[in-house]
């Protein structure tokens, strides 16, 4: 490769909103129900049915827009996007083309210590389609309309990114903003966050953009990263061969690490967009925007600042804890019970993360209650248990959300801090190990460690090592 190329990337990110009901009807928007049980005349496109807008969708869209520094389109409308496909029961999708709800936003990203601003062209609201299931065995296709009408926002970025790392940083930033707002759980694997990558390459210094392609079916950050590298190489190879990049939509196959052309611009459909006549325009008043702003929860940057000031924990801890809203929520809820920020953050960062990794779980799978973590810390502070036992108990809390105090009682894990009892145990151990006692007196102080260890073993770890040390010393 003689010439130097730069990559130009823009993203279209679809996010399923966490509303209880669908965007245009009262059906549940919950994921994972039995096929076609979350349906009604509206979301199955029955003749005569009419859409009614779910207000919560507007509020989430505005909240995301405000968090992304967007202008809110106070007079906005829905449009119909017309195309035939069986997963789309009306054969048109209610979306926004002419007056999207948010425009002209931006988010800050950071890659390798370098900060960069990614522009947001627009955010619009739309409905999701149903799900087609192709039954090869029966040679037929089945449709599940549970997802039909689930609310989506589509966040369209400017072509401001130039590497896979920047794309991942941007997606991560969006994910955090949206999760913090509670607007979506943003799970790529489950499809509640989906990204299409628009990519072109050009010689460094060139003024004009190259021809772009759109890559679909990217189900993980890793797949996105691989697809970007693959597509960059494919386009550069074409240019180097003197061939042209065709403007087309491509489908990424992550197993084969290869993409396939789906459709080119020539056979692109004319969606015949026009204003949706069944819905009235939406007017978003200054007061409404102010209320959404006021109700907006604390976002990550604000949290990071507060943690530093209020809790004084290290920046490293702050970054890990705030990298997922679930963690920050547990952290704060635990602090509310027992004010030991660093102790809590240690448990969350070390043991909690280890158990997540070992069990192949996501942060969202954490289900223990902050009260039990607080209880555990309380037991340690009271000197009821030592750290080894505490780790064992944490695993029980992590897995079964047990009450640590009850567990300690039940299993008899209390530290034996009765000096009298300990003294008689140690006396016996000294008597059983005269060689070690002799070694100690002849100056081999290491022998003391052995004797303490023997005591702990005998006590099955239920003794406070500090007290054991003290008694051994005395008796020696």
């Amino acid at each position: 490769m003689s010439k130097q190329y730069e990559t130009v990337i823009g993203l279209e990110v679809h996010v399923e909103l966490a509303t209880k009901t669908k965007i245009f009807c009262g059906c549940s928007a919950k994921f994972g129900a039995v096929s076609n049980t979350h349906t009604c005349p509206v979301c199955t496109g029955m003749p005569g049915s009419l859409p009614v807008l779910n207000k919560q969708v507007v509020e989430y869209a505005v909240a995301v827009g405000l968090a992304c520094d967007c202008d809110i389109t106070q007079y906005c409308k829905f449009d119909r996007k017309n195309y035939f496909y069986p997963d789309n029961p009306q054969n048109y999708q209610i979306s926004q083309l002419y007056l999207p709800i948010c425009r002209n936003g931006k988010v800050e990203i950071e890659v390798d210590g370098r900060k960069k601003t990614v522009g947001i062209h627009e955010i619009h609201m739309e409905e999701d389609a149903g799900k087609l299931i192709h039954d090869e065995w029966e040679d037929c296709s089945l449709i599940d309309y549970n997802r039909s009408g689930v609310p989506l926002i589509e966040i369209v970025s400017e072509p401001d990114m130039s590497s896979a790392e920047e794309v991942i940083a941007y997606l991560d930033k969006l994910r955090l903003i949206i999760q913090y707002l509670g607007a979506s759980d943003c799970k790529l694997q489950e499809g509640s966050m989906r990204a299409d990558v628009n990519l072109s390459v050009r010689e460094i210094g060139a003024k004009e953009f190259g021809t772009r392609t759109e890559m679909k079916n990217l189900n993980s950050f890793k797949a996105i990263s691989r697809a970007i590298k693959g597509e960059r190489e494919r386009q550069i190879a074409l240019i180097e061969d003197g061939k042209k990049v065709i403007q087309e939509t491509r489908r990424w196959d992550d197993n084969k690490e290869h993409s396939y052309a789906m459709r080119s611009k020539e056979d692109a459909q004319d969606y015949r967009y026009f204003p949706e006549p069944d819905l009235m325009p939406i007017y978003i008043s200054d007061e409404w925007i102010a209320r959404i702003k006021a109700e907006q929860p604390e976002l990550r940057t604000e949290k990071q600042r507060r943690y530093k000031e209020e809790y004084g924990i290290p920046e490293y801890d702050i970054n890990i804890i705030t990298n997922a809203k679930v963690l920050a929520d547990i952290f704060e809820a635990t602090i509310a019970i027992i004010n030991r920020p660093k102790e809590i953050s240690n448990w969350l960062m070390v043991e909690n993360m280890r158990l997540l990794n070992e069990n192949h779980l996501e942060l969202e799978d954490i289900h223990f209650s902050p009260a039990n973590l607080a209880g555990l810390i309380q037991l340690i502070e009271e000197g009821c248990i030592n750290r080894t036992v505490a780790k064992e108990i944490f695993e029980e809390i992590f897995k079964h959300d047990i009450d640590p105090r009850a567990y300690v009682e039940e299993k008899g894990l209390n530290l034996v801090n009765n000096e009298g009892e300990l003294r008689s145990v140690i006396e016996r151990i000294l008597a059983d190990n005269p060689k070690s006692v002799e070694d100690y007196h002849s100056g081999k102080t290491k022998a003391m460690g052995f004797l303490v260890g023997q005591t702990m073993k005998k006590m099955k770890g239920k003794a406070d090592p500090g007290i054991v040390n003290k008694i051994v010393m005395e008796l020696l």
Partner: protein
Amino acid sequence: MGMLTMTALEAGRLIRERQISAVELTKAALQQIDRLEDKVHSFVTVDDKGALNQAESVQKQVNEGILTNPLAGVPMAVKDNMCTQGLKTTCSSKILSNFVPSYSSVAVSNLQSAGAVILGKSNMDEFAMGSTTETSAFGPTMNPWNLENVPGGSSGGSCTAVASEECFYSLGSDTGGSIRQPSSFCGVTGIKPTYGTVSRYGLIAYASSLDQIGPIAKDVSDCAAILETISSYDVKDSTSIKRNDYDFTSALVDDVKDMKIGIPRDYLTDGLDKEVKEHILKAVEILRERGAIVEEFDLSLVDYAIPAYYIIASAEASSNLSRFDGVKYGYRAKDTADLHQMYKKTRSEGFGSEVKRRIILGSFVLSSGYYEAYYIKALKTKALIKEAFNKAFQKYDMILGPTAPTTAPKLSESLKEPLKMYLGDIYTISVNLCGLPAISVPCGNDSKGLPIGLQLIGDCFKEKNIIRAAFSYEQTRSYKRCKLAQKGGEKHE
């Protein structure tokens, strides 16, 4: 005279007074249907059993004092583009020939909770596209005044059923005149209410921004009572408007003194049949004699209404009708190799030619490169027409004119020249573009004996003005029955 000659309100009163039963009335109506359907073909579906069951249960509830609506127990017909739970709803199209809705439209539910007895579903132009009821996939409806003529459309079946006394009243829908024009051709009364007054939920859409359900009956009083019953604010219809003046019967007052009525000069010139004009002017004289102030004025942009309407209506229709694809319900073509072919064949076989014409027209005006030139321009025109009407209503309480330029044409004449047929909508179409209420009342018959309709157009939410004027005018003449109904009536007496 038999019981079928009564108005709906008269029939309702006798039911409440136990002088007649809902079951007797229903049986009489079903007999009339049985006698006349071969001739007029008002119905796509007659639900004998369902109607008799409803009549029985309604009568019981009337007796128990649960149902008190003035229309309780009165048999009626519903245009076949309104969903009726468990009862086939076809839009007079092959593509919905087997469609049985799982829910009822709100207008129908409102009537049913008031105790209406639904005899069946009335014939119409396919998907309400047409002005003659000839585009129905199940064959045309004939005008009861002369079986060689069309009843008008698209609510032709609903109007014929009332005129031929197969029912006491009916529901129609009006997108560009579909209640008023056939009312005019059949010698009955019909109201197109202000857009947003009657819920569209369950009305199978032709053009969403123009469609409105309304009543068809023998006289103004019936229409006001029906409208009062079907109107409601409905959260399921985002275009529904909350009003606090649904008491339309309170406008049944015989007094037009000092009411200001304007006649657009263009409504009385080109293309208006001489006899129609004479009758309209006669009606004007009567209104003047009774104290109304009537004058001619210039309403601008009259000529632009038709092109603007056909662009907007077709555009919306092309999208609204795309759900009929053979996938989920309705007709599906056989022996197709793949999805694309299934769509194509189903829709080619399922839709008639007028529907296809409008889908193609609508798809064209929305396609990229033409959207601005046609659709956007049509929307701008619509806004200008609305402004012209607003201006007129600053001066007048209502606008008067003919409902249609002619009386009912002969069968099979209109579809040969669709453009000419479209021009017949000239007086009715602006009303839909502007969301206005309008009424058509009979004002005489031409020398061939065909009825002529007088149209009164009100400002938005001013149904009461036109109801009052129409009611006052109606007091000066008596309801004229068609011969067919009279003969039918005699037979079963």
